[in-house]
């Protein structure tokens, strides 16, 4: 395919330019997959080499090490203590003791039961007494925690061996080993980054990574109201059964896959409109207020900012009452001679309800966007507009050639996070419609304004179907991640970082 230079491209007509770009897009697809393949290959190769080095170090250190190093394989920290690195040695030893104690006290039990998630069912006796058996929930949670702990222990054990090897090397070179005092000093000097990052990293692992891992695993179980894992029946692994409900396509009434498709489609439509209507209208309001000659600018801004001060759920509940069948909006319509409309309730037409929530969201979202864009608009160099005026550009041309590209450049990442945020915008939908209307044809009581996140809430909290909720959660993650990766690589903010610098 012929490649045009920038000048040649600009000389083409709009239609030809579009066709050329389309061709470029499709021609780049094989290259993208090739690059992806090479990337995966390199990553796997790197991992393989890493594993090889890991085992090689362990074996070679044992063969070549002295007795202190060899004992350290069993008694962690022995090499450090005997080489007068007492603090390090004690820390390694403490880690080993805690690990052994934990595994004996509980870790062993939970890991041992992880393959079944428990076998001893609770027994309900006729007199109302219960004999609790295993607890599937705890087995899964602590089992995962124990696996994390085991991995952390193996890594520490490897560090302990590696340190022995390094220490032997230093001593062979007749250099001095670092003392405990040096280690402590390093914590606020050379290793200060480690000191600062230890707690946040632990926090992220325990409060973010662990729950995500747990949720992913729940998706492969039958954890629901009939199997709560404690007082009625244990839950267990069931492979991809939950996922198959989504992917085994069935277009009939009450089909889970069809419902999932409809909810997903609406989630994407909603996220698109909720993001871009607010963005452009917010920008428009900001431009209007910024315009020369507009009086009382501060008053207009304050009025809009005040609406942010009211908690969103209060505004939403109030607006939902306004749009109620007996609300003020319908009162006005009826008084004007019209017929009352079902805007948001179960009798509403799906598209009326959907358009209404988008409009209400505009009403709520504009002040935020007005605030965000006001500052950015003020930062656009005025000389750009002056040059455009001299060249005879119209206001519209100035907007599309200067304002919009600049705004998109600066707010590109914001737009992306806003889009993903709107995909998970629980409040607006839950408080306005609760997912309604709920037609007969949708499975699991999903509604036509339900987003994946509100549906997930209903599945998990109202129906106690935690496993299916987890599957939806994973699907939300996949969709959001995919969109984020693709869009992040397209937006000018990351592609042409220096465009406006």
């Amino acid at each position, binding site marked *: 395919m012929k490649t045009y230079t920038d000048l040649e491209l600009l000389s083409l007509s709009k239609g030809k330019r579009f066709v050329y770009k389309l061709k470029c897009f499709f021609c780049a697809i094989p290259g993208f997959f090739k690059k992806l393949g090479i990337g995966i290959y390199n990553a796997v190769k790197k991992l393989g080499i890493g594993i090889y080095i890991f085992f090689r170090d362990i074996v070679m250190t044992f063969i070549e090490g002295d007795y202190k190093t060899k004992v350290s394989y069993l008694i962690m920290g022995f090499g450090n203590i005997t080489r007068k690195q007492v603090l390090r040695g004690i820390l390694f030893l403490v880690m080993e003791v805690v690990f052994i104690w934990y595994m004996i006290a509980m870790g062993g039990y939970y890991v041992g039961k992880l393959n079944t998630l428990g076998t001893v069912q609770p027994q309900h006796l006729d007199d*109302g007494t219960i004999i609790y058996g295993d607890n599937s929930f705890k087995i899964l949670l602590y089992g995962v925690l124990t696996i994390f702990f085991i991995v952390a222990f193996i890594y520490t054990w490897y560090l302990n061996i590696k340190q022995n090897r390094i220490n032997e090397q230093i001593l062979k070179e007749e250099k001095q080993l670092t003392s405990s005092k040096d280690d402590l000093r390093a914590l606020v000097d050379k290793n200060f980054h480690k000191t600062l990052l230890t707690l946040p990293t632990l926090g992220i692992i325990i409060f973010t990574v662990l729950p995500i891992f747990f949720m992913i695993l729940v998706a492969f179980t039958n954890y629901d*109201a*009939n199997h709560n894992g*404690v*007082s009625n029946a244990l839950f267990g692994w069931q492979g991809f059964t939950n996922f198959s409900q989504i992917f085994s396509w069935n277009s009939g*009434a009450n089909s889970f896959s069809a419902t999932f498709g409809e909810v997903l489609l609406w989630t994407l439509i909603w996220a698109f409109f909720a993001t871009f209507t607010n963005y452009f209208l917010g920008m428009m309001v900001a431009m209007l207020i910024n315009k020369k000659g507009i009086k009382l600018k501060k008053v207009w801004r304050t009025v809009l900012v005040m609406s942010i001060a009211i908690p969103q759920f209060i505004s939403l509940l109030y607006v939902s009452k306004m749009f109620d069948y*007996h609300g003020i909006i319908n009162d006005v319509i009826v008084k004007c001679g019209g017929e009352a409309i079902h805007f948001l309730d179960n009798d509403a037409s799906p598209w009326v309800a959907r358009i209404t929530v988008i409009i209400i969201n505009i009403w709520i979202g504009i002040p935020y966007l007005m605030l965000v864009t006001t500052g950015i608009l003020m930062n656009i160099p005025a000389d750009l507009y002056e040059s455009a005026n001299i060249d005879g550009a119209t206001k519209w041309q100035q907007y599309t050639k200067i304002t919009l590209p600049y705004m998109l450049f600066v707010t590109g990442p914001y737009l992306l996070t806003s889009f993903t945020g709107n995909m998970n915008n629980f409040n607006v939908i839950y408080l306005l419609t609760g997912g309604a209307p709920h037609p*007969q044809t949708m499975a*699991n009581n999903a509604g036509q304004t339900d987003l994946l996140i509100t549906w997930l809430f209903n599945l998990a909290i109202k129906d106690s179907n935690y496993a299916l909720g987890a599957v939806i959660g994973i699907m939300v993650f996949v969709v959001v991640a995919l969109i984020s990766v693709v869009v992040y690589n397209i937006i000018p903010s990351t592609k042409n970082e220096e465009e406006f610098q």
Partner: protein
Amino acid sequence: MKRKLLLASALAIALGSLASCSFIFNYVVPSYPGDNGGIGEDTGVEDAGTYNIRIWCDERIVNLTKTQVGNFVNQAKDENGNQKYKINLSIDASGEDKTAASMLEDVQNGADIYVFAQDQLAKLQKGGALAPISGAMEAAVKRETEQVGIDAATINKKLYAFPFTSDNGYYLMYDKSIIPDDKVQNIEDIVSICEQKNKIFNYPVFANGFYSASYFMSKGLDCESIWEIDASNKFSGYVDTYNTEKGFIAAKGIREIRKHASVFGNDDLPGKFGNGLAACVTGSWNYPVAEKLLGANLGCAPMPYFTVDGQRYHISSFSGYKLIGVKPQTDPKKVSVCKRIARYLSNQVCQLERFAAVNWGPSNIADLQNPTVMSSPGLKALRDQQEYSKPQRQCPSSWFSTLSSMVGSIEATSTDSELRAALKLYELNLETMIGD
């Protein structure tokens, strides 16, 4: 002396007028020395001792329940006349709509004794959150409660809770200044008056499965949805007669009423009495709101008739009960004491005390005969409706939403074949609930 007399008379008049504001405040609970239900009944366990017990109940009865448990402790004596139990009690306010969900979220850490709505029974039993009641206690409860109440607390022939109130059903409340008493027998009359006077008749038949069923269960149509529960506590099958000729008649009736602009289907309209609302179908939980707004103008009546093809059918309703249940315990003694307390809280005296305090309708047969209970307008309407009402049987939780979706779709139908299609779709959806 004269001054004292005057003061006493003034006080008496003031108290009298206060008391006459509502029958709730002037009713004195008679004492029943013989009724100590729950205290002495044989549970097969010697359970004297000290216990930590946690109760969840509606906030309106927290203090009363505390007093009643105190009475239980004081009345329970061993053979030497010493107190048999020491109860370290904690009572948390928890609305019946939230209690089941909270219990099922974490049964082990949930309340030991809790009050819940009848429709949550299957869920709770399935979740392993209810201890069965048997032996002397079961026999006593069955003796003292109507069969409908026993059915409400029974699954697979096992009693799982004590009937606590019998007023969780719904009936017609109306503004007497708009609708005369003799015009509340037929829904067509109610609607026609509302249209003439530009007022609202609220009937959540279109939005809420709990009310949607009322048309289908009407006397003469008697549609049923009976669900079987297997040994693993899953819904394993059903007999459902909604998609039949009789169901079709009910659906036609609903479509007919839906055509009228004065008929609304919101859940929470009683607050509009005095502000455009002429009548509404609701339950005793809304009686205080309606009474506050309408005062003497508030009328209560059983559900009206509707007419299809010249034939009249009396609209049915669910006879709802509140129940009090006990969580299974690892200690047989504790489960025995918890059952005693729950039984005591649901006995004749305690139910009457609750009626006097918060106007909750008793489920105890003797209490139901009580003249003061019988004179309560809301409870009287419920009693009159009882002939036409049906017990709320155990069914999958999604049944209600499926039913309301079907009724909701009736509005959009204009031909009989579309109406039949909506019923057919409802029937198809029932299949998906098997295994819930």
